[in-house]
């Protein structure tokens, strides 16, 4: 007799995998984004089963609530030609699938002997009334303080790079930079090249 929790686990996992598959196979990008939202919801369900309610809520709030909505806006605003993007998808699929299957097969041969089974990792000893959020916050701001702060710097770098790459003055601006024109050197424009002597072709007759 399967426990109810196990049943839930398989349900969430199956929907998660199917939704993830549809993300990359859906023809319509809006559908793909919506399937990604479904996948995130199911992943959140899995976290919930592990009693990690804080992570589950964060996943839904941050990814579904913020990132995916933004993504949906972008997809709807840009007129992306899906057919062109997906060119070559089917011709690359057999090779890609073969490599992926081989890797999965080989890895499961190595790892298939139950190293990470439920026996090896007994469930956490946390009592039911312990607060997940509090525990996470405690390690985040004590033991993991250093990497936590560095992660914020990584986000800052991402912001700087994104702005640097996208902020631009209007293209095709024909304004003149007089200082540059004055400061130009002869060498910037002219390069002396040695060429073979050209002999004039004999003039055409009949003039």
């Amino acid at each position, binding site marked *: 007799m399967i426990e109810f929790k196990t049943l839930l686990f398989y349900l969430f996992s199956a929907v998660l995998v199917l939704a993830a598959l549809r993300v990359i196979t859906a023809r319509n990008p809006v559908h793909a984004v919506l399937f990604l939202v479904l996948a995130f919801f199911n992943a959140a369900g899995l976290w919930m089963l592990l009693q990690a309610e804080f992570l589950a809520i964060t996943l839904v709030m941050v990814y579904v609530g913020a990132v995916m909505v933004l993504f949906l806006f972008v997809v709807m605003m840009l007129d992306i030609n899906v057919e062109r993007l997906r060119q070559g998808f089917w011709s690359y699929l057999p090779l890609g699938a073969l490599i992926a299957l081989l890797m999965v097969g080989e*890895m499961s041969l*190595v*790892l298939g*002997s139950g*190293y*990470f089974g439920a026996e090896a990792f007994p469930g956490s000893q946390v009592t039911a009334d312990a607060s997940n959020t509090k525990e996470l916050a*405690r390690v985040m701001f*004590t*033991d*993991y*303080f*250093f*990497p936590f702060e*560095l*992660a914020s*710097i*990584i986000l*800052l*770098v*991402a912001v*700087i*790079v994104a*702005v*640097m*790459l996208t902020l*631009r003055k209007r293209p095709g601006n024909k304004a003149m930079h007089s200082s540059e024109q004055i400061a130009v050197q002869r*060498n*910037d424009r002219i*390069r*002396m*090249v040695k060429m073979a002597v050209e002999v004039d072709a004999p003039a055409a007759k009949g003039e």
Partner: protein
Amino acid sequence: MLENFVTPDFYPAAAELFIAAMALIVLVADLIAGTNRRWVPALLTMVALVGAIVVTAATADGQTVQTFSRMFVDDLLADFLKLMTYLAVIMALVYSRRYMADRKLDSGEYYMLVLFATLGMMVMISASSLVTLYIGLELMSLSLYGLVAIDRDSKKATEAAMKYFVLGALASGLLLYGMSMLYGATGTLEIGGIAQALYQGNVPKTIAVFGLVFTVAGIAFKLGVVPFHMWVPDVYQGAPTAITLFLATAPKFAAFAMAMRLLVYGMFSLAEEWQHMLLIMAVLSIALGNLAAIAQTNIKRMLAYSAISHMGFMLLGLTSAVVGGQVEPFAVVNAYSSAMYYVVAYVLMSAAAFGMVMLLSRPGYEADTLDAFKGLNQRSPWFAAVMLMVMFSMAGIPFFIGFFAKFSVLLALIKAGYTSIAVIVVLFSLVGAFYYLRVVKLMYFDKPDDTSPIQAGVDMRAMLTINGLMIAFFGLFPDAIMVLCTTTLMRSL
């Protein structure tokens, strides 16, 4: 609730805090200074790096101290590699100043990203936990992706950045997967704890080795050795030369530190396993790097293939520590210090080589082909001589620094009993000598295509001169750096 928590000691991480603070100051100062005062971020960045040298030198006391809940380690190895990193970054900035200004790429973001990348390298060098190591790696890589794409109107640079980004993300994934396996096997993220668990031997070895394979793949990507080298030629060629110089120098120290921290500090008990993997990658890199470089006409691409072969050589030093299950302290120190010496030598040489490419470039003209070096002797005998020293040194001709780097690695290799491997790599180095000497031939025996005088500032000329003289000087007196490397490793292993 916080009964087990000790407030971390910030003192060992003073240099990191200083660089991080200065990077943020540059961010704000650049905003205030505006686009007309480009010297503000440049000057502040120099101040940051020189200040970091002072801070690191002042706090280096030779003690191994762990802080931030054992996530950060400050030992002599970290201090030495950090000092080398600062010097490499300063060198890169001095070389690039005019090049970047000519191409209008010397924005505040450039300096900020250089500082953040430096911070990432420092974090990697001082990592004593898988988390810090990975975070440092990402900080460095993300800044580097941005730097490669800094010339956003250049199609080649954008393509290079995209390739670097996609392959880098893949490598990060592999590395993370390997780390998760190590965590699963040993139950700890701390590098010292992993070493202890592996040493005691009550961990599933299959899982540990499985994790090791992926970790080695991640390290190999960052070093750019075969079969994870595909990005190197494209990125080196596509990025603006100043960024290529930066990419080819300082991050090598960080990658070396990553290899040391993960493999030597963390998985020394598995040395027999990873030494074999590294040995195969090293020989393949030396073979492919040297053979492929012959066919190049673009000097940046040629130097990229030469970088692959040099990194292969460096790996050889890491493979000759443990022989037949015997751990002999002297042999171990000898092997690792030869690898470290190789990195230092390589960074000196490649900085000068890319510096030369920038010396010959001018606004609107990139001297990135071999033909640009034709007849350099007639245009500037001194800089032709500098390039001659760099090329001789890279080829491993005595008495330049590159010779002693190769010599010490080969010595460690032969002591470890890999004589046949040593013979093979020497043969491939001989093949490599061809394309280094070809540059010398072009400079001295061909007529110049381009006779315009070399435009370069005093700072760049001085830096190139110093760099070239260092290559010659440390070739004549190799002990100076060698002793430093050996002492560092003896006191931090």
